[in-house]
């Protein structure tokens, strides 16, 4: 009864809005406010992407002289040549796959280990977190150039100088094909583990402490707590780190470009030991101006990253469904 008496007082009667307030509530205002972004997005993102898709089916060098170098459709010619005949592309794809597997897996382990080691909120850990995070905010080119001095061959390189003090003969770090990808993986972990650590730390701090307390009461040891609480609850962060890490790893460029050039302007180092997809794309697009062919390389790279990301998400989801 009392409710009935009170109810009319609580009922909401919308007041009629006028002028600006009426306009801001209408859909038009939202679209108008979105328009600048949408316009820029269409011009600078969607159009170039669609253009590159079109170019990937063309012979195109931007000059397109009618008589000397006509540009035109080649159908799937660029794709079939890349996939079936281009041995340098195959080498680049193989090298990149090895690099991605190594850099993402070991990078994930390094980030997770760092975050677990530095989880406690002590002064020393805070300082260490900053130190480990620093490479992530340092210029990539500068870092690669420093690594170049570290791995320099002969007895001039920092690492070789260090080894020589122990009587070890100089190692041809950047001229030994079997060392090229491990070096690039090492550089990637050194540069990226700190960023992954920060993400994992955020994930770890979001896990309620009561889960661990309950597990301790139930007799779970540290290993069980890590396996049955930490790892499952960190899965979203892990998926994010793996996907962004995979995308980043597929796009490796500076390290190869600066550390593994050849003396006559090509990219990839001795025996193409460090040739990766993006440097190869750059070589085709900007050293040779085969822009159509380079676009096809870019779309194949996109297809690979898209498929791997999709598989990653699906696998993670099915694992969750199984639980």
């Amino acid at each position, binding site marked *: 009864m009392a409710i009935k008496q009170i109810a009319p007082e609580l009922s909401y009667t919308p007041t009629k809005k006028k002028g600006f307030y009426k306009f801001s509530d209408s859909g038009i205002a939202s679209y108008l406010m979105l328009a600048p972004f949408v316009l820029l997005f269409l011009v600078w993102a969607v159009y170039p992407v669609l253009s590159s898709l079109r170019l990937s089916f063309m012979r195109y*060098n*931007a*000059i*397109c*002289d*009618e*008589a*000397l*170098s006509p540009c035109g459709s080649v159908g799937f010619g660029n794709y079939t040549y890349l996939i079936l*005949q281009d*041995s*340098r592309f195959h080498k680049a794809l193989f090298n990149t796959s090895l690099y991605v597997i190594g850099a993402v897996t070991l990078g994930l382990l390094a980030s997770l280990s760092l975050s677990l080691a530095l989880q406690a909120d002590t002064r020393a850990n805070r300082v260490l977190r900053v130190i480990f995070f620093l490479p992530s905010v340092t210029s990539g080119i500068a870092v690669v150039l420093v690594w170049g001095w570290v791995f*320099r*061959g*002969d007895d*001039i390189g920092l690492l070789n100088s260090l080894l020589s003090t122990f009587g070890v003969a100089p190692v*041809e770090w*950047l*001229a030994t*094909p079997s060392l090229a990808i491990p070096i690039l993986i090492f550089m990637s972990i050194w540069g990226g583990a700190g960023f992954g650590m920060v993400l994992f730390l955020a994930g770890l701090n979001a896990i309620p402490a009561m889960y661990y307390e309950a597990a301790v009461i139930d007799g779970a040891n540290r290993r069980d707590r890590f396996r049955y609480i930490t790892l499952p609850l960190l899965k979203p962060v892990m998926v994010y780190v793996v996907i962004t890490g995979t995308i980043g790893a597929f796009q490796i460029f500076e390290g190869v470009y600066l*550390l*593994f050039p*050849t*003396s*006559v*302007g*090509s990219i*990839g*180092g*001795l*025996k*193409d030991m460090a040739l990766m997809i993006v440097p190869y794309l750059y070589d085709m697009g*900007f*050293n*040779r*101006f085969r822009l159509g062919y380079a676009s096809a390389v870019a779309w194949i790279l996109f297809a690979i990253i898209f498929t791997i990301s999709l598989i990653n998400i699906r696998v993670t989801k099915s694992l969750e469904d199984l639980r």
Partner: protein
Amino acid sequence: MKRLGVISVAVAVAAGAVISAPANSATKVTTLTVWSTGGDADALVMGAAGKAFEAANPGVKVKVEAIGWGDGYAKVLAAAASKSGPDIFTGGLSWGISAGDKGALADLRPLGVATSIQPKVPAQIYKALIGYKSSKVYAVPYDLTLMMMFYDKTTLKNAGVTSAPKTIAEFNAAAAKIKAVSGVKNAVYNEWGNGDWLGFFSWLYSSGGSFYDAKCNVTINNATGVDALTQYKKLYADFDAPKPGVADWSMNDNIKGGKYGIGFSGNFQASSYYTYYKDYKNWTAAPVPAAAGKKSVAFIGGRGISIMGYVPATKQRLAAKFISSLYNVDVVKAMNVVGAANNAIFLSPVVDFADTIASYPADVLATIKAQLKDAQGPPNCIGWEDSQNDVTSAVQKYLFGSTSAQDALDAAAKAMKSRA
């Protein structure tokens, strides 16, 4: 107050524009923009030619900008695509053929440049700038870079080698002796084209081989090619030449210091050396070794000079006039004065002009001139530009891998044929 300040600035700018307008229209200056591929010193050398041209042509200003070797070709093509950029550029020998074939460059024949310059420069270097089967001329030689053999007389003397090796057999014997000398870390050092097609070139051609024959049939994988590649491998396997990426600078210092025995590099090393060690007499150069009974055929590179296709016809004529001025001995002298002061001695494609280089000792100058006589430029065959990586990759599979010389060269030949 703030508004008053803004108004004052606007008035001053407008007044300045009004005052300067008659002056600008009275002395109309035509600016020729030249992109010089290389370092800042190379741009300064070109600048000397620009000043000479400005003095001879009032109302013309030559603006020289340096662009790097790494992305120079891409910049030139990007300029051609956007139809804005330089009027003239210097760049790699093959750039003229490849950019010209894309329609980026002006044909130099109707401008009178090609016919006037062709008789002045070595035929083989002129040929390297003209596309096979092409009648058009998109570039003429601007300067030369020549592969040579460098050594220190003291090191050879310590090894019991009395003179520079002339034949490949003599070279192998000398390198083996040098290797045994105390203090020599690497008996041989390849500085230019280390482990790639360019480094292999001189060994191949000096053995009587070639990448293609005169009709552009691929010949790299014949018996001579295999012998030459086998010899090239000796440099790494027997004489400790450092692989690419191990140590690639200070060749001169290391030869002078006795760490490296014999070095193979371009004449730019002589330029650099004689700028720093003017009074040191033991460091010298010799032609690259040749197989018994064959000529010493060094790789000859350098830069070509071209006019962009989008430049208006009247300006193309002015650009052509500027290019022609580069083959004048007084202009070359002026360029060499600037070059010597900036560690970038200019080697004109007019061989006799080498005598204007005051910085080189007589024996080095004689070697340069002798080596120029039979030197060969890069092939001008269709597909060569795109085959270079394949050839390098194949060569390296033999040099630093387990593939046989014949298999490596067969793979290179297959790629060269497919690119043609």
